């Protein structure tokens, strides 16, 4: 960084929310420095294995066992393969505390673009009830905002990124500004009709995805080509990523400076003015530390990355963060329940098959505890994501007959998995290990997060209801599974710096502004006071755009 560089804003992290912060801030006229701990990945040219068949990918795109065990033992739970290895954190080089009682899969990216390159791309709005649940049930802290506060910002980001989906007019799953949905296949349509007839009030709807079904030539993006190779990086720019969407927009302003390989260690703070005065980072390539400053700082280092930076920002000799007056920093950490699956065989329709590979298929929205507590033994609810599909037959034996047998497709199958809401618990918390630091001198994160009775009962119900629905719809050979769910496994970790009206009970105010620092905004998953059961990224985008709007207005008004 040249000493003459001056920035109005610093954005820490370049993932889903950081990219949006950079886009909005630069478009509103600010000179922005965006830092990311990972290496640079340019759109298209650094998608090394995009469009390549397995024989052109190292190890036929199957992660070698030794490498997985030495370097990607956590990332393996996040679908790392040789073709997308460069987007993932190296668990050997960048560890956290895996000690006893710390069982948590902290699945991280480590490249510019963050999780926007590796995410599942499902996009849902929260419902009004999601924002009200904590207050209604007296659990956790009340959200200081409601659906109406966010609705226009949902529209704003949806129109820009392109979300495919079907209009359903459901109170508990508001529609987005949709492009046409990815179509259901014939077996899914058959199932939808039967399931909805057998279970009035339950729905099976089209997936809601950031994979576009219409081009956005003004953004240089092409609609989904039905390759289903999203995780290699998509040179078509068919799904939302920082690289395809927000980074080009921010660069187009001429006001963005992007620095990769910049590992932020802590924020410097002036207790007198109650402001962040500097962002300290270490250049991962040279080991040199630098401090940069700007009038406003957006912290978007991912849920727990941001919490780690906040926790490591503290007065000399103190264990308490500058930003933890409330004592809630690092608490109320959540993740979706995830490890429930149901599957079965759909009879008939074998004269039809799919052509093309969709990146997502169907969704069964939440149907439990809607509008009222149903006295099911658990609060809140879950939804399922799934698909009907046909696979090549799997004959036994060997030789010419086996080879011939593999040339046919088997019948239709269906499977779906649940994502459920985890409640906010004060003692589900993270902390810094006082005795262990990483290669940049940052204390390692320690986890103390477990699922409780509510989550386990919900998983059992999701399994039971999933089986019931598949059987009632007429599927054969219905099976289900519940695997041990280690928190973090859903890669929907949220909370730790929750939003709230009370500065004594929350870290951020309703504008994502730290109660303890007027020029610090945290707009990634750390802000969440509860987590709904739907995928979170779209909500992070909307909250980020809203927070930037407020921050820039406040800067103009001179209050920041």
């Amino acid at each position, binding site marked *: 960084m040249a000493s003459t560089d001056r920035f109005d804003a610093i954005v820490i992290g370049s993932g889903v929310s950081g990219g949006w912060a950079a886009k909005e801030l630069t478009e509103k006229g600010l000179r922005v420095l965006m830092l990311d701990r990972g290496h640079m990945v340019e759109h298209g040219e650094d998608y090394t294995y995009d*469009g390549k068949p397995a024989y052109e990918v*190292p190890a036929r795109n199957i992660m*070698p066992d*030794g490498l997985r065990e030495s370097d990607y033992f956590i990332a393996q739970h996040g679908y790392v393969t040789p073709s997308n*290895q460069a987007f993932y954190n190296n668990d050997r080089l960048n560890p956290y505390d895996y000690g006893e009682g710390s069982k948590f899969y902290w699945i991280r990216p480590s490249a510019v673009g963050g999780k926007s390159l590796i995410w599942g791309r499902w996009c849902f709005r929260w419902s009004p009830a999601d924002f009200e649940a904590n207050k209604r049930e007296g659990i956790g802290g009340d959200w200081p905002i409601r659906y109406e506060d966010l609705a226009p910002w949902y529209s704003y980001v949806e129109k820009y990124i392109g979300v495919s989906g079907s209009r359903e007019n459901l109170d508990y799953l508001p529609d987005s500004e949709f492009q046409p949905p990815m179509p259901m296949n014939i077996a899914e349509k058959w199932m939808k009709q039967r399931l909805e007839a057998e279970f009035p009030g339950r729905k099976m709807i089209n997936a809601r995805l950031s994979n576009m079904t219409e081009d956005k030539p003004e953004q240089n993006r092409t609609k989904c080509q039905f390759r289903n190779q999203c995780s290699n990086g998509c040179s078509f720019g068919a799904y939302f990523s920082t690289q395809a969407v927000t980074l080009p927009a921010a660069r187009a302003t001429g006001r963005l400076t992007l620095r990769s390989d910049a590992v932020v260690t802590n924020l410097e703070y002036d207790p007198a003015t109650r402001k962040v005065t500097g962002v300290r980072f270490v250049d991962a390539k040279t080991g040199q530390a630098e401090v940069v400053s700007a009038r406003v700082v957006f912290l978007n280092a991912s849920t727990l990355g941001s919490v780690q930076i906040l926790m490591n920002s503290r007065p000399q000799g103190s264990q308490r963060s500058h930003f933890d007056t409330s004592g809630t920093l690092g608490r109320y950490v959540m993740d979706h329940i995830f490890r429930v699956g149901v599957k079965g065989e759909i009879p008939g329709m074998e004269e039809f*098959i799919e052509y*093309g590979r969709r990146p997502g298929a169907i969704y069964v929205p939440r149907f439990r505890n809607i509008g009222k507590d149903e006295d099911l033994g658990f609060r809140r609810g879950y939804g399922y994501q799934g698909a009907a599909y046909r696979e090549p037959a799997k004959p036994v034996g060997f030789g010419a007959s086996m080879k011939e047998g593999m040339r046919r497709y088997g019948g239709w199958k269906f499977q779906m998995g649940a994502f459920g809401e985890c409640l906010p618990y004060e003692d589900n918390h993270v902390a810094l290990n006082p005795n262990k630091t990483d290669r940049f001198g940052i204390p390692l994160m320690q986890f103390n997060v477990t699922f409780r009775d509510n989550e386990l009962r919900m998983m059992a119900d999701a399994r039971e209801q999933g089986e019931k629905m598949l059987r009632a719809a007429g599927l054969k050979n219905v099976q289900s599974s519940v695997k041990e769910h280690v928190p973090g496994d859903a890669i929907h970790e949220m909370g730790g710096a929750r939003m709230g009206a009370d500065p004594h009970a929350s870290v951020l105010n309703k504008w994502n502004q730290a109660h303890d620092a007027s020029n610090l905004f945290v707009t990634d998953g750390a802000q969440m006071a509860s987590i709904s059961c739907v995928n979170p990224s779209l909500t992070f985008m909307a909250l980020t755009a809203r927070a930037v709007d407020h921050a820039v207005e406040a800067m103009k008004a001179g209050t920041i």
Partner: protein
Amino acid sequence: MDRRDALAGMVAMFGAQIFAPLARAAGVTPGAGMPVIDQGAPSVQVFTPDQRALMSALSERVMPTTDTPGAIAAGVPAYIEKLLADWAVAEDREPILSGLAEIDARSRQDYGLPAVQAKPDQQDALLTLTMNDALPGGAEFFKAFRQMVIVGYYTSEIGITQEREYLPVPSEYNGAFPYSQVNKVYSA
């Protein structure tokens, strides 16, 4: 087909639908400090020449040449040796090596010949013995060996582009496509 060709092919197929990002897409820039998956020659010699010849012959019996090429043409034996040398853990070699030894011993006993010189139907009979676990360690050998052959074959260029129909860019989705129009299983 290298990446540039593949993308040029896509552009040709899609014409005006493709925008500038694709034109830029080329080259390889692995991330700094990332461990690289070794793709060179096997770093250790897993098989003796005799074992290699037998492994190769048996891979062809699992996935034989029919109206499309078989395992040997598809480079499956080289894949298996590289896999066992560098991509799998060292313990995975043992069931394969001991299985090959058992097969060879049984061949000498039943046919008076090293297994590599046995006729194809005799090799099939020996493989069947392992499949039915009628040789020591047979089932373990068969399961692992069959799996390596199948993975190696269907991830090879021949497997992807000849045995199956390579469909890198479907460009559209049809959820009720007539199965009668499917000539081969699709590969990506």
